[in-house]
Structures are given as C-alpha cells and as structure tokens.
C-alpha cells in the first residue's frame, strides 16, 4: 500500500475539515463570550472560576444577572461577534454536524482502504523513534521520515492523537453540555466529573487544537510549504510552485467563506436562524428530542447560590403582589381548552400531585446550578383543563416587560415562551412554586415558573401569569416560538 502520497478523498476531507474547524472555533468563541468564565464545579459559584476571559467585574452593591456578564468579542475571533449568541450557536451546531459527518466518512474510509496505517502506529518502536525525532527537531534539524510514509514518527503520533483522541473528546464533551443528554443519562455527566468539568475540558481541547494547528503550520513551512501543499493538493510533491499558490488560494477561499457567513449573520440573522435552524433542528429532533429527564440529584448537591438570568418585573402591580405574598396573583389558563381556569397560588398549592425534583439547571450561556424545585406537574394541569384536539402548543406569558425590566435587552414586549404539548407532558415538566424547600424567590420567577429539565434555562419562563393552549406558535410574537427566539434568534427547541 502506498502511504506516501495522499488519495483524493483524504485531500478533499483535509480541506473541508479546515473550513469546518475554523467555523467551529470562531463560533465556539462566540458561545464562550456569553459567559466567559470556566469552572470545575457544577454550581458555577461566582468567584470560583478557574479562568475568565472578560474585563468586566460585577457590582457588589446592586442586583445583577448573568446577562450583565456577557462579553462582546470582535468578529475577527468570533462568529459572528458582537454578542450574538444565537448566531454563534447556529453556526457551531451546523458546523459540528457537518464536521462529525465528515469525520465519520473519513474514519470509515481510513479503515476501509487500509490508510489507517499512516496514522495508527504498528509497533512500540515508534515511541523511541519519536523521542529521537524530538531531539533532532531540538537540534534544528529535520528527522527522517518513516519508510514509505510522508511523516516522521513524532508527526505520526501527533496526527493519531488529534484524530483518535482530541476529536472524539471534543465531540463527547460537547454532548455532555446537552441538558437532554445529561437529564436522560446522568451517569454520562458523572463520567466527565460534571457539567462544568466537561465544559472546561471542551475548552482545553480547543486550546489543544489551536496549539496543534500552530505547530502543524510551522512544520509545513519548515519542511517546505510548496512541496507539502503539493502533496495535500495534488497527491504528490512534484509541483511545489503550484502547491504554494493553490494553497494560498484555498486559504483565501476559507477566509472568504468565514467573512461571508459573518456578514450574513450580522446583517440577516433571521435568515440564518431559519436556514441553519432547519438543519440543526432536524438532527436535534432525531437524536435528542426523545430524551426524557431521569435526574435525581441528592439534596447535598444543591448549589448554595443558584445563579440567575433575567430581571424581575419592575412594576407597581408586581411589587404589591410580592409584598402580599402573591395573594392577589392569579394564574389564567385558557386558549384551546375545554375547561379554562383561574387559579390563585393557594389553589395551586392545594391541588393534589405536588412534585419535587432535584436537578441540574443548564443555562444557554454555559453556567449551571443544582436546585430542588417543587410544584405542580404540568401534565396534571393539562389534565385539568383538557386541551382541545387542535391544541398543539402551550404558551407561557409572563409579567416581565423586557423593554422596561431589561433596558439593555435587544427587544421589547412581554417575555413569553412556547413549548409543544409532548414536551409539556414530560414527567419532570413542572410549574414550580418552591425552590430548595422555600417559596420561589422573586429573582427565580416568583410566584410561578416553568421547569423543563431536558431544555436550556431560557425556555423555563419565570413570573408566569397566563398559560394559553394554541394550535400554532407562528401566530404569536414574531412567530419563532418565544421571546428569545424572536429577538435574539435562539432555537425554539433547545435540547443542546
């Protein structure tokens, strides 16, 4: 078998891989910008981070939430930059799907064609050989290539590490950040030492990829840019001049694609949301939608301070209700139902079926906390109001007026979120009125909030006062399935 030249499929996959990795890295930076702190523990306790990539400090003398901690990075390093988490997520998942597919085809072909021999060491002798190569590099000389192969021993080990260790760890730690995966398979998260350790390892893998890329480019330059690129472009090293120029054209094309998708995302975010969302949602529905939460954290795991996202309603009506223990508050349940209801907080508490669940909260920003929530299972309420056959979605309307309560937010109007009835019937879909054994705190959504344990936090509407059963979410707001979907271009279904 010829392992010296590169077959066409390896060359094509190599350049496709370069494109996807650039998109993944830049969109990953955009995602981390939204909560630029890394932790080892799942409570994401403020001040306990081991790394931060922000110049911001939070005030000690007034209430702040995690939205205040978001950074705005330059489009030069993030996709698309300028604090566009929704866009960053679309690109990250879209590129990840294509990257994983490319990788799967690559691995399959490697083993089907016997080309795996170029990356998988066949003998322990490669390790002393690699040490010898390292010493040779430290002498500012080039080691010999392995017989009949395009790499020296050290290079072969480095490629094996990237293909068979780093890439799988990147995928697996990415999956560990899915609330649906973690809720359905809590053991999987424990395998990584928790949600925040998985996130930290995911970041460290990014650094490893960047370090590999830097050394890879340096080695190509040292061994001969034109000749090495001739190998990777034409399958032979006989056209170094063409290799030089064509490689520059290909790199320019990759830069151009990155620039184009950045401009598209910044100028036409709704279009990106619809186009990429269609692809990502289809995959997500197939792989993650069936997951049902089986979380049961021990009471000892409850976070001392559960982080918060979003500001409470800043209205006289709400404040008066809060002062009176929410006695004047009413929950209206209506829309496409046989039996519309109006309930007080006492009515809700008096209903049979109170349920509590100690679970991990996943914020879309990346932080997490553990809390024990108690309240009425949503399926019980659904049973009471009896949705009409045409009802397919449940819309949760809140008392938070975003324009008033979060002036910095990119949008106005009352916050709402919509979920489909199937999700609303999940065993751990809960209308929570208690947290950690006490009444639900104001910042966590008092008097009533939603809990959906396979979803990201923003779907779990807080300060709820109205629940409507509807036939189509596209008739509500801007028609994307929720306030954040409408205004910051998040996905409607967020199992990851």
């Amino acid at each position: 078998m010829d392992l010296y030249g590169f077959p066409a499929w390896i060359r094509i996959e190599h350049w496709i891989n370069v494109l996807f990795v650039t998109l993944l890295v830049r969109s990953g930076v955009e995602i981390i910008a939204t909560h630029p702190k890394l932790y080892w523990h799942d409570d994401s306790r403020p001040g306990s981070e081991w790394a931060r990539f922000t110049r911001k400090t939070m005030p000690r003398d007034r209430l702040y939430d995690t939205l205040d901690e978001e950074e705005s990075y330059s489009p030069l390093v993030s996709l698309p930059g300028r604090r566009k988490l929704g866009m960053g997520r679309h690109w990250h998942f879209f590129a990840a799907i294509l990257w994983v597919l490319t990788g799967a085809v690559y691995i399959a072909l490697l083993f089907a064609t016997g080309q795996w021999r170029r990356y998988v060491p066949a003998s322990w002798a490669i390790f002393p050989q690699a040490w010898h190569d390292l010493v040779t590099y430290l002498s500012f000389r080039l080691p010999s290539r392995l017989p009949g192969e395009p790499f020296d021993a050290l290079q072969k080990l480095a490629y094996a590490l990237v293909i068979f260790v780093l890439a799988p760890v990147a995928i697996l730690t990415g999956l560990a950040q899915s609330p649906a995966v973690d809720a359905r398979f809590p053991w999987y998260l424990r395998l990584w030492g928790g949600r925040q350790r998985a996130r930290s390892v995911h970041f460290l893998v990014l650094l490893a990829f960047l370090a590999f890329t830097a050394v890879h480019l340096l080695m190509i330059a040292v061994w001969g840019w034109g000749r090495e690129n001739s190998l990777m472009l034409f399958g032979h090293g006989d056209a170094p001049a063409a290799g030089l120029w064509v490689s520059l054209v290909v790199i320019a094309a990759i830069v151009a694609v990155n620039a184009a998708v950045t401009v598209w995302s910044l100028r036409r975010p709704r279009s990106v949301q619809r186009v990429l969302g269609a692809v990502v949602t289809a995959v997500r529905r197939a792989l993650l939608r069936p997951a049902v939460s089986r979380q049961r954290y021990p009471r000892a795991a409850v976070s001392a301070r559960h982080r918060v996202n979003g500001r409470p309603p800043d209205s006289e009506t709400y404040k008066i209700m809060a002062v009176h223990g929410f006695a004047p508050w009413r929950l209206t349940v209506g829309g496409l139902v046989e039996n519309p209801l109006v309930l007080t907080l006492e009515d809700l508490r008096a209903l049979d079926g109170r349920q509590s669940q100690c679970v991990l909260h996943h914020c879309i920003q990346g932080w997490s906390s553990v809390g024990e929530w108690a309240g009425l299972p949503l399926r019980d309420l659904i049973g009471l109001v009896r949705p009409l056959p045409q009802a397919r979605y449940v819309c949760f309307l809140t008392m938070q007026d975003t324009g008033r309560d979060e002036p910095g937010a990119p949008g106005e109007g009352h916050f709402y979120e919509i979920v489909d009835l199937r999700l609303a019937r999940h065993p751990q879909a809960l209308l929570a009125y208690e947290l950690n054994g006490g009444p639900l705190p104001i910042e966590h959504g008092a008097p009533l909030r939603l809990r959906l344990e396979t979803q990201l936090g923003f779907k779990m509407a807080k300060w709820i006062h109205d629940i409507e059963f509807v036939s189509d979410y596209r008739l509500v707001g801007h028609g994307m399935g929720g306030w954040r979907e409408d205004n910051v271009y998040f996905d409607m279904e967020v199992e990851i």
Partner: protein
Amino acid sequence: MGTAGGHEIRRGPLATVVLRYTGLGRLAGLLEYFAFALPRTTTTAGVTLLAGLGAVHAYLIADATADPAYLIAYRELIAAGASAAAVLMTLRRPARAGWWLGSAVSAVALAVHLVSRTAGLPRMPQLIGRWDCPLGTVTMGAAALFLALHGSVLAGVNVAFPRRRDWHD
C-alpha cells in the same frame, strides 16, 4: 491602573508611560481579557521549567568536565540558582523572591546561551554557530518560557502560590 479578568493591577508612572508610547499598551489591553486562578498549577509550571533548566546545567557539569573552569562554575551557579528559586517559589513568604531569582537565573542562562552562539565565550570559540545542540534549545525554551510565565504573573494574567484570586464575580 489596569485590569486582568476584571482584577485590578496597580501600575507605576514609568509603566504607564512605557505602555502608552511603545504600543505595548494595546497588547496589555488584550491581556486584560485573560485571567486564570490556578496558583498551584502556575507555580508547578514555573518549578518544572526551572528544574529543566537546572537539570540541563547539572548534566553539563558532569558531562563536559574539560570545559574552562569559569564555565563549570557558571553552570554550577545556574543549577544552584534554579534549584534555590524553585524551592523558594513553593514556600509561602519567600515565594515572590523565588520568582524573581528564577527570572534572574533564566535571563542570565538565556543571555549566556545566545552570546555563546553568536559573539562567543572566552576559550570556547567552538560554540559559535552551534545551534544544533538539543540541550541548548531546551535551555533557551525553558528560560524563555519561565520569563514569559513570570511576566504573566506580573501582568495579572496568572497568580502564583501562595496568592489567590479575590474574585467575587
């Protein structure tokens, strides 16, 4: 006054002038986005680099006994200095002095290595142009990395044992 990861750093007037007029201010501005709270890891990395530096020089003492006496004495000083700095860095009170001693040792080792390969050292003309010595490359790498690491501690990007971050959020 500057910040690193939201952590305030005090800068004197000289540092302020240097940052403003050398263009290093922009680099410092970029560094302000990075801050790590890994004091033990930082110190372990520093100690490892100094151990590498010391070990190379100790090896050369044993290996190159025919070299001039001043060069052997120099290697003994570097090995002893690197060892002393590494020990001091792990102790609470003298840790900061240990870092400075480590930087001094690294700077000297780096400078002497570069001079030996360019201008040359007395009675050692054969070293001029000899960049193909792996131990020399390790010396340069370890010394340069230690200086960079200490620089990152001074810039507030890293903290070293026994200091800790005082982040509230």
